[in-house]
Structure formats: C-alpha cells, structure tokens
C-alpha cells in the first residue's frame, strides 16, 4: 500500500467510515507482525506486539493530527512495544559493527588491484527472489545486532525516511545513516560469501568466485 493510500485509510478510520476498521487492522497487523517478528525473534511476542500496538493506536488516536504520518506513528508505538518484550536476543549479541570489517579484501593481479567479490552481475534485482535467497537474507537480517536491525527494517523494508526513522528510534539522523550503511554492508557481505562460497544457482544463473582476468 502506498503512503497516500495509508493516509487515506487513517483518515477514514478516524472518521469512523464503514470497513475502515477491518482494513486498517488487517493491513497494519501484518506489517507490525513482520517488524516485531524480526525484532523479537518469535511469533508469540510478535503477535502480542501487534495486538498491543493496535490497541495503543486506538487508545491514543486523538493524538494523530496528521494522518499522513500514520506509518511512522504506528512504528514508533511498535518499537516501544518491542522494547517492552526485550529479552537477550537469541540471534545476535549487541555489538558495534565497524566499517573496516566490511572492506573487501584486495589483491594484486597483473599490476591491477582487484577486490575479492562474487559475480553479482546476473543476480536478479529482487523481483524473482528465490526462496533460497529469501532465507539467506532473512538469516542475515536476524543476525544483525538489534540497533542495526531496527534501522534497516524501518529504512529499507518499511521505506521510512531517515528523519522518520530517527524520530521513531530516538536517535539523530547521522546515527540512522551510519547504522543503515553498516547493516547493508553486513548483509551484502553475507550474500557475497554465499554467492562465492556456494556457487549456487540464483535466478537461473550459476554464480561462483569471480574469475581472475
């Protein structure tokens, strides 16, 4: 659903229009569940977060002055509900990711510097994402330390802006940018290792280590 459609749905909900409640609950329940499932790590917590978030949305809807901000408003509530469920992450310890650990290794090749990188050229852009890639991506996201995971979920999956994400997470814009970059680099590295190490078929083409030229 586009942001405009979401805003319209929020307006209809506030106005008490028929069917708006069901549509709103169905749509946002799934979105909140996805976010909190990846943040909390289990279905039970994720379903509780979805319910608590929706309840809070209805209880405090009079504070929603700008329906066009519904997505960031809902996710701010969901983020707080996830924090209340906080347990030691079963996926990833909280640690800082540094840029250096994601710099690709380099080597000399006939007077040229080359980096160690898989052949990404024929990897599809995502529309034809195969289940194998999906699982790998999901694992890579879940293994990110929590502060990086929350940023990439809000910025790249929920397509919230840097400013919206900063407001939701109570951090500065620069912190969002830094964490987003490192989260993407960490995921890129996992995908790259996979493409190089397994030489598996992705999107119909066989991938492997980039041949030295």
């Amino acid at each position: 659903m586009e942001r405009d459609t979401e805003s319209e749905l929020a307006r209809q909900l506030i106005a008490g229009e028929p069917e708006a409640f069901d549509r709103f609950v169905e749509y946002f329940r799934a979105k909140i569940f996805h976010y909190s499932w990846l943040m909390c790590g289990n279905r039970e917590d994720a379903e509780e977060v979805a319910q608590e978030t929706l309840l809070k949305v209805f209880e405090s809807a009079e504070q929603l002055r700008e329906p066009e901000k519904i997505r960031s408003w809902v996710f701010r509530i969901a983020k707080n509900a996830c924090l209340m469920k906080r347990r030691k992450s079963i996926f990833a310890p909280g640690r800082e990711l540094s840029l250096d650990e994601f710099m690709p290794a380099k080597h000399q090749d006939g007077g040229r510097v080359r980096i160690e990188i898989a052949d990404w050229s024929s990897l599809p852009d995502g529309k034809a994402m195969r289940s194998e890639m999906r699982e790998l991506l999901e694992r890579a996201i879940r293994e990110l330390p929590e502060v990086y995971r929350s940023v990439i979920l809000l910025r790249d999956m929920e397509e919230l802006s840097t400013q919206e994400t900063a407001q939701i997470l109570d951090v500065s814009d620069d912190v969002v940018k830094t964490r987003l970059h490192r989260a993407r680099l960490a995921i890129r590295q996992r995908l790259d290792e996979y493409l190089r190490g397994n030489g598996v078929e992705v999107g119909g083409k066989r991938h492997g280590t980039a041949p030295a030229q």
Partner: protein
Amino acid sequence: MEPHQHNDRCKEVFALLSDYLNLELPPEACQEIEAHIAGCSPCIEFAESLRKTVELCRQYHPTELPAPMGQEAKAQLLEAYGRMLAARTNSQPF
C-alpha cells in the same frame, strides 16, 4: 593507462556509498564519487553489489504470517476503537 591504486579515495567512497545510493549527499559530493568510480572498477563492482543488496532488502517480506486474529483480540480492539470514535464525537460540537 595507470593501474588503479586501491587507495584512501576508495575508502572514502566506501564509507559514503549508502548516502550516495539514498541520494542523501550534496551534489558536489555525488559528482566526486561518480568521477572516482568511473575510473575505478573495484568501486564500481562493490557499489553495484551494494545497490543489489538494497534492492533485495526492499523486495523482501517475511513469509511468516500472523495467526488469524482471535475473537477476543478483535473484540478488544473494536471496543477501543468504539471509545476512540465516541471521544471524538463528544469533543466535536454539532
């Protein structure tokens, strides 16, 4: 043609790639990055792999779905929604 040196400039570009892909850099900084990567095949390859990573992340949606909502949970939400509508109606003069 001089062989490319994997140098400090590559590291600077590496640090800014997400901001570049997000169009969150000032025009001058974008131009500098584009001028560098135009002559730097390792940076082109790396930037392309990061761009594809971002595309994959944007396309990704978990396959996991919530269980159908129970009647009790729905009733709880409907009740809260009803209170919200009542509060709004009461606060608005006819």
